[in-house]
């Protein structure tokens, strides 16, 4: 009936990455999928070939979360964790974010906002880093699927952000 919703990724300022995506589901379900470990493990995957053996969430202000991904071919692990700063169920979560391998300075701060309209939920995920260098390191990191973007795709990206 419908094609997949479009994910937009933009750099709204020098220190931020903003992602926006619409989901065809009520907000409470989208919130659950971000906060219940057995659900998070189903979708917050790494690149192909990676599994997510650790997903711990202590959902309260000051509580911690920890995620670990593992490349099954050679056992390489990548972990990330942080602390919840703000929780307004089912509409807003603010948490710190730091990779185990600290190859960028300082902590990131993630803000997830869910807005429901007509049974659909618009998700906006803003990640703010302590410096532009940190943000650029994140953008550069890990995602080994690197397919050269065509020029058309760029125009599309630009059009969707203006």
């Amino acid at each position: 009936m419908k094609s997949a919703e479009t994910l937009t990724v933009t750099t709204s300022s020098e220190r931020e990455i903003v992602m926006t995506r619409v989901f065809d589901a009520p907000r409470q379900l989208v919130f659950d999928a971000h906060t219940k470990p057995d659900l998070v493990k189903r979708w917050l995957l790494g690149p192909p070939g990676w599994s997510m053996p650790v997903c711990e969430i202590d959902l309260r202000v000051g509580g911690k979360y920890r995620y670990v991904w593992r490349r099954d071919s050679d056992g390489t692990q990548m972990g990330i964790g942080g602390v919840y700063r703000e929780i307004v169920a089912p509409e807003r979560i603010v948490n710190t974010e730091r990779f185990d391998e600290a190859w960028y300075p300082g902590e990131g701060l993630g803000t997830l906002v869910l807005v429901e309209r007509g049974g659909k939920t618009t998700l906006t995920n803003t990640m703010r880093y302590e410096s532009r260098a940190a943000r650029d390191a994140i953008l550069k990191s890990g995602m080994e699927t690197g397919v050269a973007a065509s020029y058309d795709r760029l125009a599309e990206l630009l059009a969707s952000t203006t």
Partner: protein
Amino acid sequence: MNSGRLDATFAALADPTRRAILARLASGEASVTTLAKPFAMSQPAISKHLKVLERAGLIRRGRDAQRRPRRLEPKPLADATRWLERYRRLWEGRYQHLDALLDELKTKEKTPGDHR
């Protein structure tokens, strides 16, 4: 890849007016006057944005000395887009899994007998 150049590219892309200028230039070179038209901005204000884009290497001036049209310089944009694109692909994959999961959860909620 030169990371200083990439910094300049992302900084230049962080502004909506500059992104709109680039989108316009993607369909061909244009003079400053033409570029200024769609915006409620003075020509000096637009020129300032053009300078930022130029310094970041995203645009350059054409040969016509009279009109000095600006044109897109594709390489740095392609580099920057490639980064964003990789990031986008990872999350796009994740969100497609999330779509499937949400469909499943919705079905469960609707199953008669589940609600008591």
